[in-house]
């Protein structure tokens, strides 16, 4: 998907950079990267450095950065919606109106990206400094400690101690319950595929009214 956008916007000064948050490293990411034949950088972030630096809590999460290296849209769900939550797990189907909402939201987000790529700061999608600061969510001490536990967990997993790794991942999840990055990466390290299994669906159900992907605020 990003390759098509990068190609379409080749005549603008627009650069897609993808970051795979993959504690299993490049091997886990390659099967998804190679078929896309990407011309943009596909970075492999074993230690989830970018998630820490930018406050990402899920995938896909995106940040827009202008030519001067200033953030013009802080971390947000990149055009994803909670539509998948209405999926019938037996048939894997979603109601038509939910599908339509998902398609429309994604399309509007991509149109926003195109508008910014072509018009820069003239685009209403490029937020002012005040608007960006309003939307920024600061890091709390609990969230900072969660990150340290996640890092320790990754180290222990990498060094053959999956039991203590899991204990540290659990600490991270307890300290920062909104982070799906921690929950899902930890499930995946236990067993590939587990991050999409019954535990995941149960955790999503437990969200209740809360969003899995807080929807992007479009320009009015």
């Amino acid at each position, binding site marked *: 998907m990003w390759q098509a956008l990068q190609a379409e916007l080749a005549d603008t000064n*627009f650069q897609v950079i*993808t*970051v795979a948050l993959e504690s299993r490293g490049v091997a886990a990411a390659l099967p998804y990267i190679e078929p896309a034949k990407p011309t943009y950088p596909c970075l492999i972030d074993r230690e989830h450095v970018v998630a820490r630096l930018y406050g990402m809590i899920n995938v896909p999460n995106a940040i827009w950065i202008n030519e001067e*290296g200033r*953030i013009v849209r802080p971390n947000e769900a990149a055009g994803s919606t909670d539509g998948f939550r209405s999926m019938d797990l037996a048939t894997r189907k979603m109601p038509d109106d939910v599908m339509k909402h998902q398609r429309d939201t994604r399309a509007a987000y991509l149109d926003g990206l195109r508008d910014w790529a072509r018009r820069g700061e003239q685009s209403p999608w490029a937020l002012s400094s005040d608007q960006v600061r309003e939307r920024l969510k*600061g890091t709390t001490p609990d969230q900072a400690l969660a990150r*340290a536990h996640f890092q*320790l967990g990754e180290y222990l997993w990498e060094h053959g101690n999956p039991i203590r790794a899991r204990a540290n991942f659990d600490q991270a999840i307890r300290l920062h319950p909104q982070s799906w990055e921690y929950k899902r*990466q930890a499930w995946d390290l236990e067993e590939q595929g587990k991050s999409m299994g019954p535990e995941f669906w149960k955790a999503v159900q437990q969200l209740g009214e809360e969003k899995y992907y807080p929807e992007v605020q479009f320009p009015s």
Partner: protein
Amino acid sequence: MTGLSAYPSSMPTLLINGLTSDLPAGAPAEGPWAPVAQLARLTGWELKPEGACLGEVCVPLPRGRESEFVRDGWFSVGALAAHLSQPVAFDAEANAWAVGEAAQDRTAALESLEAPNFTLPDHLGMEHQLQDYRGKKVFLVSWASW
């Protein structure tokens, strides 16, 4: 996975400032301590007349409390982390510590609106820095196989 099978090992492990180190045994008290002579190699911190320094940035040690930080040729990495409000994750069974970034430092960095730089390899192993793309509009997006 590589095979470190024996836990806990006698030497505590410390993750700090992007470094992973085994701390020598014999610390004068509880918590993560490093010999002053090996401090820079093990932790990235250096002890200078101005205080504890990480690269160009120095933090003065609180006057009158020096013995909490430096004792018998050892430096308390834990005391410095507490002084800087940096989170410290500890796993007693694994005998391992991770010192993270202070919440207020991350918040302040983001509020500057300057996109923090990082260096990562791409899927072919070539390294990229975000700042290499200065002059372009960058759409930075995460994904994962999970």
